């Protein structure tokens, strides 16, 4: 289990680097598919089986398909050969390394003890009870937000008639 986690973690970091560094944005979308699937694997290792399944369903099966569609619709062939990072990459690298090191240091200060890992249990029943019980108000609010996103997507993506 532990070895699988480290292999998944190394692959996750590599594919995340692929997302931000690859020149062709289509290739970085493929790397993002790999990263999201690995995150689903890490969820399952942390005992979140329902969440891992919905990660695969929603992210890998839904969001990434739309993203690949938009990439294919909006990519001109010359753009794949152009420079993909802007002039501030050195500053951004320093900033992100500082944020990453700060996060790791802060986590080390508070969470470096060895917490005992509890056993894995199926969680679908308790998530269902949570969502339709104590979390019912945010659940309904999210359904409203999804409806608004649906209407917004239709509104933004339709052709304008007056041209």
């Amino acid at each position: 289990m532990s070895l699988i986690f480290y292999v998944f973690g190394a692959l996750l970091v590599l594919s995340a680097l692929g997302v931000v560094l690859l020149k062709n944005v289509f290739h970085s979308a493929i790397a993002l598919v790999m990263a999201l699937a690995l995150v689903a694997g890490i969820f399952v290792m942390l005992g979140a089986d329902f969440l891992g399944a919905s990660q695969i369903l929603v992210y890998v099966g839904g969001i990434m398909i739309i993203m690949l569609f938009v990439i294919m619709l909006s990519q001109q062939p010359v753009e794949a050969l152009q420079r993909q990072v802007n002039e501030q990459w050195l500053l951004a690298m320093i900033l992100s390394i500082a944020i990453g090191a700060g996060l790791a240091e802060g986590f080390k200060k508070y969470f470096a003890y060895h917490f005992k890992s509890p056993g894995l249990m199926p969680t679908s029943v308790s998530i269902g009870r949570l969502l339709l019980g104590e979390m019912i108000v945010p659940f309904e609010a999210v359904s409203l937000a999804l409806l608004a996103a649906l209407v917004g997507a239709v509104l933004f993506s339709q052709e304008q008639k007056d041209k």
Partner: protein
Amino acid sequence: MTLYHILALSGVVFSIGIFGVLTRRNILGILMSIELMFNAANINLVAFNHYLHPGNVWGQGFSLFVITLAAAEAVVGLSLVLAIYRNIKSVFTENMNLLHG
């Protein structure tokens, strides 16, 4: 596989996402880097849920909401990208300097 290693992994992925948001010229690359940052936050929520509060599933419920709202955000963002692309024929952010296309 301790809690700290999982948190460090998510911190690394989060800072890679920040690097992508700050440096990508392509707006689709920026959207993908934002997805990476959402996933790092989700790993944190699930890891805290697993190690610190093993009896309940509130962290996983929050992660579900994050996934749902990320889907909504991606759909609206991508349709905006398509609308902008239809107007200015480019997906590079330095070309998007007009409020009224």
